């Protein structure tokens, strides 16, 4: 059995004059939670549609669970669970009916009760789809993606449009179905989500992968430094900070002294020296770089949340 759940190489796809994918390549190992992150319009959904055999790329090769999605789409979809962005169910269909129907369409044993408990929708079993909130709809779609006990679960923008509590609930769900036999691919435009959930992350921009690695490694590679901010009052002598900070940069911004540090290992020595020099450390913050900073460095542009 091959160790890769997904091999995608040089995928290209255009819609008219818009190039959605311009040489997308990546691999996903079995058992990992793999994130595809990037701003809206980066090509995440097109990538996912290609992987699930719902769209044919113009060129490039793919293997998903050992099958070619462009040729064996229907056979492949029997083995994957797909939560699609912008999809719905008929308004009058009840939650439990949807689960039974889809179990039947997949030829799987119905286990609606178990799945509803799992996604926390047991009380809504008899509610029509139209009466569910945004978060409940998403959770129902996750349950539907699980009816066939898939080897690969693909979640497209799972938490977009949800409030923080709703997002956290879904994060817990994803963490619960981590297992060595099960692979998860999730796309998101929330960098913090990818950082929290994913074993590895592919950062996408304009239809291709600009960086791929574990979130930690990406940050260490692209943004190794840390930022230390000290609220110090206007009579603060920047020389003091520079003296302790050696060859590293410190600048004054309004009431704050902002220092760029080489890495987490120098934080403690710098603080110790500042304290020794009699600086008031009452309002000191350190900021670890995030995947958003990685995006900035890797693409040269600010990450847009739009």
């Amino acid at each position: 059995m091959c160790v890769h759940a997904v091999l995608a190489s040089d995928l290209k796809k255009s819609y008219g004059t818009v190039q959605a994918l311009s040489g997308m390549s990546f691999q996903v190992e079995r058992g990992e939670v793999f994130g595809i992150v990037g701003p809206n319009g980066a090509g995440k959904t097109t990538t996912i549609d290609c992987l699930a055999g719902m769209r044919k790329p113009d060129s490039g090769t793919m293997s998903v669970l050992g099958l070619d999605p462009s040729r064996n789409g229907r056979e492949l979809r029997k083995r994957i669970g797909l939560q699609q962005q912008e999809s719905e169910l008929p308004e009058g269909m009840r939650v439990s009916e949807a689960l039974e129907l889809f179990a039947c369409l997949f030829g799987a044993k119905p286990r609606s009760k178990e799945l509803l408990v799992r996604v926390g929708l047991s009380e809504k079993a008899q509610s029509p789809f139209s009466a569910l909130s945004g978060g409940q709809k998403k959770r129902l779609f996750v349950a539907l993606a699980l009816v066939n006990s898939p080897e690969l679960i693909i979640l497209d923008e799972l938490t977009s449009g949800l409030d923080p509590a709703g997002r956290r609930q879904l994060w817990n769900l994803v963490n619960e179905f981590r297992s060595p036999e099960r692979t998860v691919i999730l796309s998101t435009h929330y960098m913090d989500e990818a950082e929290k959930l994913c074993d590895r992350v592919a950062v996408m921009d304009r239809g291709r992968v600009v960086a791929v690695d574990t979130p930690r490694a990406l940050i260490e590679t692209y943004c190794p430094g840390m930022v230390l901010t000290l609220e110090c009052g206007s009579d603060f002598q920047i020389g003091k900070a520079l003296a302790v900070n050696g060859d590293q940069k410190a600048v004054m911004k309004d009431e704050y002294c902002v220092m760029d540090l080489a890495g987490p290992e120098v934080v403690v020595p710098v603080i110790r020296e500042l304290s020794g020099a009699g600086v008031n450390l009452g309002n000191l913050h350190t900021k670890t770089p995030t995947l958003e900073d990685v995006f900035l460095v890797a693409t040269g542009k600010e990450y847009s949340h739009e």
Partner: protein
Amino acid sequence: MSKTLKLCAMELKLYLREPSAFFFTLIFPLLLMLLFGSIWGNDPFPEADYGYIDAFTSAFIGIVILTAGISNLTIGIATYREKGILKRFRAAPISPVSFLLAQMGAILAVSAMGVILLLIAGKVIFHMQFRGNSLEAFAAFFLSCCGIAGLGFIPASLARTARSGTVIANSLYFPMLFLSGAALPRQMLPDLLKKVSEAFPLTHSIRMMQGIWLGDPITEYWVEMAVLGATLALGGFFAGKLFRWD
């Protein structure tokens, strides 16, 4: 097969839960029957032993079949497409053919309900008489539903939004409603339009159902059966090729 049946049962359940969706399908033909019935009554025509309702109930049945097979089917599926519901089914995974067969099954059941309403109204209000063979009449109804829904497959496979679905469905619906002998007797049409209307499957469907109703054996209607069968085959073929999921 069990998948298709399950989906079909689900669709029917959704229809029954929200009757507004097919209210028109059931009520419009009934209202026409009451309207025309109150104008013409059901006394025997001169030199015939049957009256208006006896002769034209088949035409009202044709309207039920037309509304369900063209309008309901096209607009229903176009709405599913617009909302991304079809994408959901595609992930299930289900083939376009099983999906359409399930929809056709639901349409057939709705049409049967419409027919039952017409038969009850005809019997109770107009003392309508039926002189054909019931089994043959049912076969003619079944084949008509399949043929008309088969034609409906084509717009249903293509329309991207409920709105465009409505426009396409209407452009098939109204010519057939007026020219196929459904809302107006075909004898009233000028010769040219009579010829044109031979191209509509509903013309064949109504002619066959009317004939069988008044006592003709189904074996006199091979041409009509062939036209309806061919329409279904053609619609199925195009749907298989053209069906869009999003």
